[in-house]
């Protein structure tokens, strides 16, 4: 499996890089053997952005299909050339190293800069023996650097495939807490659980107590368990939520266990039924709407700042 993933990444990189840069990189790749750790690996790993640049990886629809076909959930949409090249080196290390790759991963992590951290975590679904890296991934989620958190939580099949319930729930809650989107989290619906629904409801109540907004995406994880007092939360959104929140509530309630109160609440949101039926209103469209709302706020503030200059 990983051999094919490596070939795929090498193909993507090579069609974008000048010949000389690609030759340098191939030499580094070939020089990796089981004699690690080594200064030559450290230097190669560190030099990659200097030698290859940091441009976004240019990928076609077919490339995404190839990736997802090889490894379920593999999504290289945020990769840059340096990230891809580093992951390729790491995959190689994970197959040849004489010490457990988890140990190497930890060593590299200890002295990594931000772009190296991104490579370490974007590559999680592709390394040999992923199960050994669960602890490292959970550790990475404790970061204060949002991009590092998102490298694990977003567009990455690793957490849904390997996390126990507790780290999974912590990841979802932290995403909401730091303002990271839930839409790019893979396996969100499949990993929904009543414990998480309870945690998120408590979190919503804390936010409301502080007069702060609650992300509309939160309801997605509560919906499948929305019974009893969890339905009170939906009632509150229907009464006082904004447009995006109401749409999210409508989508989430569709997944709630059958109950009379559910039907009553859904009746109050019936104006969204058509859009849900014809696929106009989805969690993805909610995410787009949130993005546009944030953009509008930012533009307004930027305009105000410009005016006061």
């Amino acid at each position, binding site marked *: 499996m990983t051999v094919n993933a490596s070939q795929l990444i090498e193909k993507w990189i090579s069609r974008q890089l000048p010949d000389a840069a690609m030759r340098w990189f191939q030499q580094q790749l070939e020089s990796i053997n089981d004699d690690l750790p080594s200064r030559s690996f450290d230097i190669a790993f560190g030099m990659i952005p*200097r030698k290859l640049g940091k441009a976004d990886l240019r990928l076609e629809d077919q490339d995404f299909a190839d990736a997802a076909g090889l490894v379920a959930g593999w999504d290289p949409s*945020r990769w840059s050339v340096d990230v891809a090249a580093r992951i390729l080196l790491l995959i190689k290390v994970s197959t040849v190293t004489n010490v457990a790759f988890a140990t190497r991963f930890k060593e590299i992590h200890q002295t990594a800069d931000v772009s190296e951290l991104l490579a370490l975590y974007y590559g999680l679904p592709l390394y040999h023996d992923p199960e050994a890296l669960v602890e490292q991934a959970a550790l990475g989620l404790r970061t204060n650097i949002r991009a590092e958190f998102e490298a694990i939580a977003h567009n990455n099949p690793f957490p849904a495939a390997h996390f126990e319930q507790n780290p999974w729930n912590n990841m979802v809650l932290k995403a909401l807490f730091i303002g990271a989107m839930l839409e790019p989290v893979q396996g969100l619906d499949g990993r929904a659980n009543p414990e998480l629904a309870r945690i998120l409801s408590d979190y919503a109540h804390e936010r409301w107590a502080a007069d702060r907004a609650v992300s509309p995406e939160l309801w997605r994880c509560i919906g499948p368990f929305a019974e009893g007092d969890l339905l009170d939360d939906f009632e509150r959104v229907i009464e006082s939520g904004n447009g995006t929140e109401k749409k999210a509530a409508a989508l989430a309630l569709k997944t709630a266990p059958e109950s009379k109160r559910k039907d009553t609440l859904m009746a109050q949101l019936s104006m969204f039924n058509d859009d849900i039926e014809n696929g106009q209103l989805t969690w993805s469209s909610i995410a787009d709407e949130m993005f546009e709302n944030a953009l509008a706020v930012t533009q307004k503030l930027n305009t105000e700042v410009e005016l006061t200059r």
Partner: protein
Amino acid sequence: MMLIDSHAHMISRTTDDYEAMAAAGVVAVIEPAFWIGQPRTQVGTYIDYLSAIVGFERFRAGQFGIRHYCTIGLNSKEANNEELAEGVMEILPRFALKEGVVAIGEIGYDDQTELEDKYFRLQIELAKELELPVMIHTPHRDKKRGTTRSMDVCEEHGIDPSMVIVDHNNEETVQEVLDRGYWAAFSIYPSTKMGSARMVELLKTYGPERIIVDSACDWGISEPLGVAKTALLAAQEGIDKEAIRLICYQNALDAYGQSGQMKEEDWLNPDPIDQRTVYEGNSILRGQREPVVEDPKDKKNLSNLIIE
């Protein structure tokens, strides 16, 4: 006017300082690896410190629209702990090639001991091997002789003066540093190093060529707006705009840009991956998060009691 503070220990500064610097026009800072106010006693804490200045601090600055760079090195004070120094020298190459590392520094002399001399020389050799500029910390005590000696050692090791920034200059050292072809940096640091008014007088005498103004703000009583205030004072004193741009922006960019790790595009037109990850800038690209725009001055007094 865009400003660069090419010597700022931001790890010791607050978010208020970042906001004030951004509002004053600072687009980039360079954080030299240095002493943290008390001695480190083991390599492990050094590793974590260097990790913080290549990692979290870079991210933290980016949240305020400021690009963060750093220099990597074993400082002269801690060079006197031989066991620590040996351990640090071993791990330095692992950090010196990280993204945004623009020099080996700040290195040089403190008490001008034999150990300081040994590790200064070893680090000059490392800089040569990695083709990085060198940032020299000139000593507070016996400064004039220490400055001369630092340059003598550089020349002994055959590093080109154009690759060396000699920092913490004053009226007594500047002439020789410029005459010998080095970049001459001045730290606008209250009470101990250089003041803004003295700096303006120096500019009138020496002009802007190869002169760099920084704040060296750290954990002591120091001034993160040192560069901005000097720029304003110089303008008031009739120094021409281009000269101010050179000493508060362009010269630092030219000197440290020789690392290949610092370019104007980093803040004017950053790579998309940086915009998504480490550098949010001030534009609408901030996108998904609620932006915070407020007047930093409001935080420094008690007139507004509402904390939200």
